[in-house]
């Protein structure tokens, strides 16, 4: 058994352990969940130290036959792209468990069910990134919806059932379009490659044989599914509802990790398997991405609800990521992948601190906050840092990735890059306005007695802030993993970076 299979299985085994604890003993359950997820994170970091960054092939591979008649295998492996996303996911889960210690109370079901769902979800989060068999990926991609659905519907607030259903229906619709493409892959690979296969490396040959129309259709099946997941304007409407209804912890995992499966899939499947179709659709996608950037930002400026605000900022950020992915330059690709990593942490910080503020104030309306800087200085500072990271202030991690995306895009699509730059200006507005309303100004009546962060909360948020600052100053450790694979992705899709042009002739 390869070590990444072990990594993926660890949380679900932990879930079995949690299932054995009686449900009254919720403290023990939480401790156990924290222990397991921390162990998973430690194992992932250990695997990362064994990873050879210069190698762009899949490493730690493992293959077993699953359904030989259909050419389906259990095959896993990681490259730089999946490694950074796995690291982000497994680091976020223990932080969520610790930060959202009391979230599981007051749901429809016991705390035990909550942590079992979280642990099952973690297994699937790892599984979806390590799968190198398209069918295996699809199975996990779809199965993942079920725990999230129950997490939102069972433990969320407000219109939780409706939001959970909306999330599920949108995702299933996308998933079924992808199923059509999966079937297309099965049939065409059987036709042209001799035997049906879902192996991602073998399938990179497929595009040489199939007709452009077929390739475009297959591409669209995948792309629409991923664009719903990511989410890209105009397929984003499920996200604000789901993010608002879910608990802050669920929303961190939803926006931080699950939505990344969409952007991950665009790189792994859309670009790698269908480079010609990607080329065809790139202009449209870039336009949609730019619209996402601006549209998300405008909605965020107008948002009155803290959780919706964070969801809208994410739509804007995903616009940047998707623009970077389809700009097809190695710089933009690196930037997009790094952005996926950083967005996980900055959104986590926003949702976690925002969740604390909402739990204390018992309201998520931004206008209800005010004067928190005086009442709860630590919490206010944490929110401020998270906000600054979200608006990509130089010195914080998001800046590096946003800059790389814009520079990389400019070399190929200057107009798009220039328009997207307005997103940065708008970001300053949508972050600084709520910061001003919520943290500064006169103390809103009712806020005088709010408690500041306790020790558990400080410990939980510390690593997030540490990552945000450390990678803002020195992004090299993560970029070293990303750069080779980003260059490889762009190159194997048949693109070369545009040669730099000198402004004034020699």
């Amino acid at each position, binding site marked *: 058994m390869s070590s990444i299979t072990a990594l993926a299985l660890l949380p679900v085994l932990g879930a079995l352990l949690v299932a054995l604890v009686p449900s009254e003993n919720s403290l023990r359950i939480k401790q156990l969940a924290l222990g397991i997820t921390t162990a998973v994170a430690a194992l992932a970091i250990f695997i990362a130290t064994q990873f050879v960054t210069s190698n762009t092939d899949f490493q730690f591979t493992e293959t077993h*036959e*699953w*359904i*030989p*008649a*259909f050419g389906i295998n259990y095959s896993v492996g990681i490259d730089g792209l999946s490694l950074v996303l796995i690291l982000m996911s497994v680091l976020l889960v223990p932080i969520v468990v610790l930060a959202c210690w009391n979230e599981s109370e007051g749901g*429809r079901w016991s705390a035990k069910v909550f942590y079992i769902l979280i642990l099952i979800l973690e297994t699937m989060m790892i599984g979806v990134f390590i799968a190198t068999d398209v069918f295996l990926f*699809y*199975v*996990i991609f*779809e*199965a993942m919806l*079920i725990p999230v659905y*129950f997490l939102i*519907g*069972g433990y969320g607030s407000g219109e*939780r*059932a409706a939001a*959970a*259903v909306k999330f*599920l*229906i949108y995702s*299933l*619709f996308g998933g*079924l*379009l992808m*199923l*059509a493409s*999966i*079937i*297309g892959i*099965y*049939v065409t690979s*059987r036709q042209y490659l001799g035997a049906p296969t879902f192996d991602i490396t073998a399938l990179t040959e497929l595009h040489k044989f199939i007709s452009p129309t077929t390739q475009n259709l297959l591409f669209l099946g995948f792309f629409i599914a991923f664009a719903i997941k990511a989410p890209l304007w105009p397929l984003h409407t499920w996200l604000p509802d789901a993010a608002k209804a879910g608990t802050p912890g669920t929303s961190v995992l939803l926006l931080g990790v699950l939505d990344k499966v969409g952007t991950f899939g665009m790189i792994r499947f859309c670009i790698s398997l269908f480079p010609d179709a990607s080329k065809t659709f790139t202009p449209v996608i870039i336009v949609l991405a730019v619209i996402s950037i601006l549209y998300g930002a405008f909605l965020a400026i107008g948002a009155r609800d803290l959780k919706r605000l964070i969801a809208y900022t994410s739509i804007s950020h995903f616009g940047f990521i998707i623009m970077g992915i389809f700009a097809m330059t190695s710089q933009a690709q690196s930037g997009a992948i790094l952005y996926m990593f950083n967005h996980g942490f900055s959104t986590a910080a926003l949702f976690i601190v925002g969740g604390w503020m909402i739990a204390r104030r018992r309201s998520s309306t931004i206008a209800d906050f005010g004067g928190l800087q005086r009442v709860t200085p630590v919490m206010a500072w944490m929110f401020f840092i998270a906000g600054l990271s979200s608006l990509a202030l130089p010195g914080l991690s998001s800046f590096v990735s946003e800059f790389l995306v814009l520079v990389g895009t400019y070399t190929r699509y200057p107009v798009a890059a220039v328009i997207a730059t307005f997103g940065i200006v708008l970001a300053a507005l949508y972050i600084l306005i709520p910061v001003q309303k919520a943290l500064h100004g006169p103390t809103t009546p009712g806020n005088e007695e709010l408690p500041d962060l306790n020790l558990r909360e400080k410990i939980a948020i510390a690593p997030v802030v540490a990552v945000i600052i450390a990678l803002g100053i020195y992004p090299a450790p993560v970029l070293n993993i990303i750069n080779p694979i980003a260059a490889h992705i762009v190159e194997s899709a048949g693109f070369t970076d545009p040669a730099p042009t000198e402004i004034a002739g020699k």
Partner: protein
Amino acid sequence: MTFTAPVLEYALLAPMLAIFGGAIIGVLVEAFLPGRLRAPAQLFVSVMAIITSLLLLFRIKGQSSTTPAMASLSFDGAGFLFQASILVIALLSIFLIADQDNFTAAAATVPGSTEEREAHQAQSQTTEVFPLTLFAVGGMMLFPVATDLITLFVALEVLSLPLYLMAGLARYRRLASQEAALKYFLLGAFSSAFFLFGAAFLYGYSSSLTFAGIQQAVLGNAGNDVFLLIGLAFISVGLLFKIGAFPFHAWSPDVYQGSPTAITAFMAAATKVAAFGAILRIFYVSFANAEWQWRPALVLIAIATMLFGSLVAIAQRDVKRMLAYSSIAHAGFLLSGVYALSKSGLDASIFYLFAYGVATVGGFAIVTLIRDSSGEVTDLNRWSGLGKRSPIVASTFAFFLLAFAGIPLTSGFIGKFSIFSAAYESGSLAILIAGVLSSAIAAFFYIRVIVLMFFKDPVEDGTSVVIPSALTTITITISALITLILGVFPAPLVDFIASTASFLR
């Protein structure tokens, strides 16, 4: 005139003979045993008959013959798989039927009459449902192996007549049950007439009643094509009626709703296997070379059936009606396997039939558990909050619904994947897209039930979940396990079907 006695290969007929034998013993038990002993004795006879039949069937696995009973039957790999699926489904269903609380004490009494009341008070329970089930099972086993039109028609009637009766046996809401039986009977009789009419035209076309003879006529392009078309169309009407394909579906919601739920389970699952078995055989064997005559029409019927079933199911407020429309949608999915007209289409259809049949029995088994003082509660609104009251029952039902919706890690997903692949491989992008779309629509109403069970608060109106009997528990557990195992490790069955399934021509 000399008369030659037919040569029968008894080994190949033994599984069916065991079932018919069991049915006749059941009739004798009903006639001669005292009331108190009847139910257990009937159950014992039925289970033994089915198990014996399964054992006999597995003894002849791998054998094939075009003349087990002259040219009337043909035993081959596909026939083996259909019969085995029917028997497994019958075994699971008979455990549900054994819960006699769902059946009227005396079917012959007029609803609401004194005789009925007396029968109830005397607690004398008639148990004719067991032999009827066995007769239906026998007919179903004969249906997919029949290779001439007369035998096919006889099998059709042998499987249908007991079902008409069984539909009318409900203990509660007997009028609705009898209405269902009558409706089923009348429409069924019409469809039988269509079938016979078609058979006559095919005889006129090919001057033969055997599948092989018709195939020869099609190959040789011998007869009058108009006769072929008319015959093909009318025979298809008869067969499509049995599977509930649009526009011949009108009976199924009423019959599903009115019949005792255990019978609905059996009917929905086993009839589909038998009828699709026959459809696959006749289209793959007799009409394979006339594909231009039927495939374009079949695409339309398949697409209309899946879209209609999924769309109308959304509006249903009754769980049995909802499952009826969902079964119409599934019939549409299965027709894409018939359309495929390929080895992979056949394999996929058989897998799908088995997986769907088992999940259907499991799903209806759970419906039998939700009751109030006047029998089963099928109004979906009263199911709300079931997850709170009885988490295990609700989760299992949710699991079956996910299997119907074709979510990965359930058998339904593998079925859907393989059957749509087969249809697409045979050149129909339209079926693939329609299938995917109607799956998305269908997912909506399955999920609505899950929402209702888990995210709504319970209503206090006396609806309760009864503790399942041991036999019902067995059925639910086995169905759920098969559904899960076929979703996670389908390879053994997929390979087995791939290596076994074939039609002798």
